[in-house]
């Protein structure tokens, strides 16, 4: 597979301006749209607002040792002051894959960290890589509980597409036979450490309703489709020169490029979608060159918006026409609303006396997972909240960072920090947040960014359901650790702002009724049939599972539908 070829800015004048398809964004879902549409024979223009990141070549820090970084991976005070949001998520080794907060401001009506990566591959370069399927417990939840609107799909609709994307991406994990966390097409699972294995066995003994399984992760435990295997360096977020994990750069964009149907344009900011009032369809997109600010129009039969949850909503809200004065495809008034993120920052940790003569080898880019065990059925029903959470955790030996808390100095202190410390088990929940109409993305009427585009306002807060769940998260973590024989158990519940999970979802939701939703069951706009949206914005509810795998499956499914509709002449 070759590297995606970037169309040089100097030759854009000679580029055709008409394509079969346009994909806006090259992140985890845009990469999939590019691959699927190109492989189905469509001449596809992929627009990325940021710079090119060529696979391997542009992973400039990937082979660096800790001592080659002047601040040994710490962010400087100056960098933190200039990047109060991104510095939350990045470090000295990967900060070139995050935007500059100074250049890319937005307005936080309430604290919300909007972590972004404006480059080819987007955040697929730096994502957490955890991959879990949703199930009918998730797809039916809104309907059963009368919350927001019903998902227009069920598990059977998406299951084959989960198979399809897993088979290409390569997800390692272990089948557990849980109905509410369906098994997938797994590469061999990674090992648990001694203490994780112990914890897993004890949890099964003490709790009939829960298990501990190895994380399901998009790292290749064996060579796969010409990529990998993972070298267990745990430096994924610098970009992997071994193609050991799934990213657009390593996997989908090279596949799209191999068809010779893809034109990738970088540094190209989509300002709006052009609506053709006569044909009642989108005609194309208006694109601003990020450097020269020159505006160019490109046209296509179908348009996929994959700019990420917040940005996709902003593009729609900016695309004002006579028919859609409130934004393209926004007759429902739902565009920008129902913003969700998983909540995190609550959990527990404990130490284990034992396995003093055991250790591990290599750096596993993964942890263990405790799938949701609340509100699964009548027996696990809670009175204080709906939905649930899953814990992600790890059991490792303390190392110098933790051992350095001890008093003293000199030879004994040195011995302490250089020897493996006690085993600890740490766990933190990713919890479901409900879709609230008031949690929303809007455009500021006055303030503009450096490109003259309206600043995005984000208004987001957690409500009582999440707060009640957090309490249970903290208590249950303590209970599980204590009952399985851990000592010095500490539980925590940090007040972390929304956005911190980097799982923004829901601003352009799917639904059955055009009056209350923006997209139909194939991620097609109810109002504008040749526009498809398959990034996180399409999510009708959040589940508690890490969502990227679902975006991938929905994207592949929507591409299949879009091309078949195109061929039938329906769009």
């Amino acid at each position: 597979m070759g590297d995606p070829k970037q169309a040089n800015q100097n030759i854009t004048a000679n580029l055709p301006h008409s394509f079969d398809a346009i994909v806006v964004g090259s992140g985890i879902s845009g990469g999939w749209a590019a691959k699927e549409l190109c492989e189905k024979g469509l001449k596809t223009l992929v627009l990325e607002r940021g710079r090119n990141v060529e696979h391997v070549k542009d992973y400039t820090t990937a082979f660096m040792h800790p001592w080659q970084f002047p601040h040994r991976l710490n962010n400087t005070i100056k960098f933190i002051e200039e990047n109060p949001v991104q510095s939350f998520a990045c470090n000295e080794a990967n900060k070139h894959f995050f935007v500059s907060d100074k250049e890319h401001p937005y307005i936080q009506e309430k604290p919300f960290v909007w972590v972004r990566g404006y480059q080819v591959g987007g955040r697929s370069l730096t994502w957490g890589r955890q991959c879990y399927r949703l199930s009918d417990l998730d797809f039916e939840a809104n309907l059963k509980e009368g919350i927001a609107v019903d998902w227009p799909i069920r598990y059977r609709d998406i299951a084959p597409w989960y198979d399809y994307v897993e088979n290409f991406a390569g997800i390692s994990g272990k089948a557990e036979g849980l109905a509410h966390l369906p098994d997938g097409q797994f590469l061999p699972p990674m090992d648990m450490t001694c203490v994780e294995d112990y914890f897993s066995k004890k949890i099964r003994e003490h709790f009939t309703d829960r298990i501990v399984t190895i994380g399901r992760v998009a790292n290749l435990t064996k060579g796969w489709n010409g990529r990998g295997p993972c070298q267990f360096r745990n430096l994924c977020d610098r970009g992997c020169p071994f193609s050991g994990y799934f990213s657009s750069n390593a996997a989908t964009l090279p596949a799209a490029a191999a068809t010779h149907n893809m034109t990738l344009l970088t540094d190209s900011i989509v300002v709006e979608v052009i609506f053709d009032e006569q044909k009642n369809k989108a005609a194309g997109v208006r694109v601003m060159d990020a450097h020269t600010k020159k505006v160019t129009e490109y046209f296509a039969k179908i348009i996929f918006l994959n700019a990420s949850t917040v940005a996709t909503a902003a593009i729609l809200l900016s695309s004002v026409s006579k028919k859609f004065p409130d934004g393209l495809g926004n007759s429902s008034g739902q565009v920008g609303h129902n913003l969700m993120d998983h909540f995190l920052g609550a959990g527990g940790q404990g130490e284990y006396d034992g396995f003093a003569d055991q250790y591990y080898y290599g750096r596993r880019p993964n942890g263990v997972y405790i799938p949701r065990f609340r509100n699964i059925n009548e027996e696990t029903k809670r009175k204080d909240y709906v939905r649930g959470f899953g814990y992600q955790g790890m059991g490792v030996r303390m190392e110098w960072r933790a051992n350095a808390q001890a008093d003293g100095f000199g030879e004994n202190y040195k011995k302490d920090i250089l020897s493996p410390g006690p085993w600890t088990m740490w766990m933190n929940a990713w919890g479901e947040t409900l879709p609230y109409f008031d949690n929303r993305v809007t455009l500021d009427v006055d303030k503009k960014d450096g490109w003259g585009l309206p600043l995005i306002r984000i208004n987001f807060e957690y409500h009582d359901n999440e707060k009640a769940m957090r309490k249970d998260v903290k208590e249950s973590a303590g209970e599980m650790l204590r009952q399985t024989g851990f000592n010095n158990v500490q539980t925590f519940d940090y007040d972390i702002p929304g956005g911190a999970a980097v799982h923004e979802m829901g601003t352009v939701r799917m639904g059955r009724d055009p009056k209350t939703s923006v997209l139909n069951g194939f991620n097609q706009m109810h109002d504008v049939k040749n526009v498809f949206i398959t990034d996180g914005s399409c999510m009708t509810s959040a589940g508690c599972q890490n969502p990227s795998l679902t975006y991938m499956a929905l994207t592949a499914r929507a591409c299949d539908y879009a091309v078949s509709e195109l061929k039938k002449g329906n769009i």
Partner: protein
Amino acid sequence: MKRRKAIGRILLIGGGSIAAYSGYKWWDWNKGPDIEYLEHNKDLLAALAEAIIPTTDSPGAKEAGVGDFITVMVKDCTDRKSQNKFIDGLKELERYCSSSFGNTFQQCSVKEQKQTLQHFEQRGKSNNGIIGKVENRFFGKSFFATLKNYTTEGYCTSEAGATKGLSYLYIPGKYIGCMPLQPGQKSWATH
């Protein structure tokens, strides 16, 4: 599970009244730090680091270049209040050595160096729990805490410290979750 780091980084935001302290104190903590003093005292920093992590059968902090690292970190990665506390602490330590032993720290005997560090370790102890965290946030970290943190971090992430003090795997190539600890096995340098 990178977010673990992010969570660890979140500062505890607590109430705490600064009104009770005089304006002078406030100025003293927030004044422009005397960075030049640091640059001129790299030998002192190296000697202090070496006293915390001495040469044994593996290299010590001096060989690992920790003195330079402390200077870089105090300059670039330390908040204003902790910077001032650190530089003031360093000056105070010089005075302490001079008045107690009539020597610079570098010239002090091992025993005198130990006594000096014990003195500053004791003074730098913060309150436990939330009060300690609030203190650190509003008044900066103690001189000794900053010295010891940066010494340890500088050593464990240096080439000498990571590869000869600790055990460093550049490209492990495989993962084994559970295996017997090898005789003399050092802690892994990176995770």
